[in-house]
């Protein structure tokens, strides 16, 4: 316990780093999965293909991905961008299926009603289909956020400091409290972000779950 009290500074700094490194992949995962999820939802041909590909992506071990990305993209192995791209790939892998399911969850009669009153295709997607897919997209985003925050710790293996540092350092120096502090910090920020997303969802989608 004393280790924690003595190192609050370090834990705080690593937490901020951790959040910063996780935020971008979560956001990018959401943005990229919208067109990909739409492709998977819209066309039967692309559906099987997309879902198989994203399913496979998710099974690639993170270490293998860290080793594969640098030669493919011409980036440095020991770099934050390597971590961010790898985490983004996992985020996209999770989110694409959610977005496809979310779009499929929109009631066909509501979609038809939107057509009937004169929404054009583009406008209908952004103003009707996507907002109504919101609750399921949000469910996916919560899974993605928690998963990314937890996965982010492997960054330490390619020299990126975040809460994962407490695991390796604690292990090398045999300080159990340090390892536990790392685990607790990861869980706490995952829960906090999850709550935040729920609150954000309520604010953005006040219509969901009302009445009925």
């Amino acid at each position, binding site marked *: 316990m004393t280790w924690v009290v003595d190192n609050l500074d370090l834990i705080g700094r690593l937490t901020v780093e951790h959040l910063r490194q996780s935020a971008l992949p979560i956001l990018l995962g959401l943005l990229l999965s919208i067109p990909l999820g739409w492709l998977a939802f819209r066309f039967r041909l692309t559906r099987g293909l997309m879902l198989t590909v994203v399913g496979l992506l998710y099974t690639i071990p993170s270490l293998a991905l860290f080793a594969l990305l640098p030669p493919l993209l011409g980036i440095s192995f020991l770099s934050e961008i390597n971590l961010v791209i790898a985490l983004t790939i996992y985020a996209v892998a999770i989110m694409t299926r959610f977005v496809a399911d979310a779009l499929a969850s929109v009631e066909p*009669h*509501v979609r*038809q*009603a*939107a*057509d*009937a*009153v*004169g*929404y*054009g295709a583009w*406008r209908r997607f952004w103003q*009707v289909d996507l*907002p*109504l897919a*919101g609750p399921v997209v949000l469910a996916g985003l919560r899974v993605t956020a928690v998963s990314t925050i937890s996965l982010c710790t492997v960054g330490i293996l390619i020299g990126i400091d975040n809460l994962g540092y407490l695991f390796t350092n604690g292990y090398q120096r045999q300080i159990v409290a340090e390892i536990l502090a790392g685990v607790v910090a990861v869980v706490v920020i995952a829960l906090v972000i999850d709550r935040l997303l729920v609150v954000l969802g309520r604010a953005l*989608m*006040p*219509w*969901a779950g*009302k*009445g*009925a």
Partner: protein
Amino acid sequence: MIEFRSVTKTYPDGTDAVADFSLVVPAHTTTVLVGSSGSGKTTLLRMINRMVEPTSGSIEIDGEPIAQRDPVRLRRSIGYVLQNGGLLPHHRVIDNVATVLRLEGTPKQEAREKAAEVLDVVGLDRSLAQRYPSQLSGGQQQRVGVARALAADPNILLMDEPFGAVDPIVRAELQAETLRLQQELHKTVVFVTHDIDEAFLLGDQVVILSTGAQVAQVGSPSEIIENPADDFVASFIGTERGARALRTKHTDHGTVLVDGAGRTQGRLVESSS
């Protein structure tokens, strides 16, 4: 005026929903399409706003073929009321009503003011304006659906079994409201139902359809009741049995009319005309 000229519709799976249908829908009156389930009523209605494209034949509005119009603009110029309200669940009542105005580029504030006025027209309290559709009763949702269809002041109103999902009392209320509105607004209304009583109540012109949108009879309610074209029409409108098959019965107090079940339905009086 809406005119169907030899319109057919075969769906991609081979279903012949409409086979050679021709009809003139006069302007500023209510035409009711009535027929049993699957007779092609919804298909006919959706062809008017190009939600469904005819396989052959053409449809004209005021002499202009709609095939040449941009479908999205065409739909905005035609009010459409759907069976389950078809309201957007994520928009408040006021914004649902303002939908078409907003799509046409009316500024938000102006569109909402206009929408609030239309709520008055259809008899909805303005206090409901900020609710979401799921917070309304079925009857209220239908009124919002009618308000949305009327908001941009279209000439044509399409109504697809708009009162099919509400209880009989609310249904009667909404029917009376529709009659009142039509007396004020004089829209060209095409109304779909499978309820013959509703058809006779609301229709200036009633079109009785059998499978494949075959026209069994077209006419005013009186013309159809007085002179059913064939046995199909007679049995469909129930002049053989049921509520419309009235017989005279002479009693000590004068002549009354009784229905098929022997219940007295009214008194026979001489017409003054």
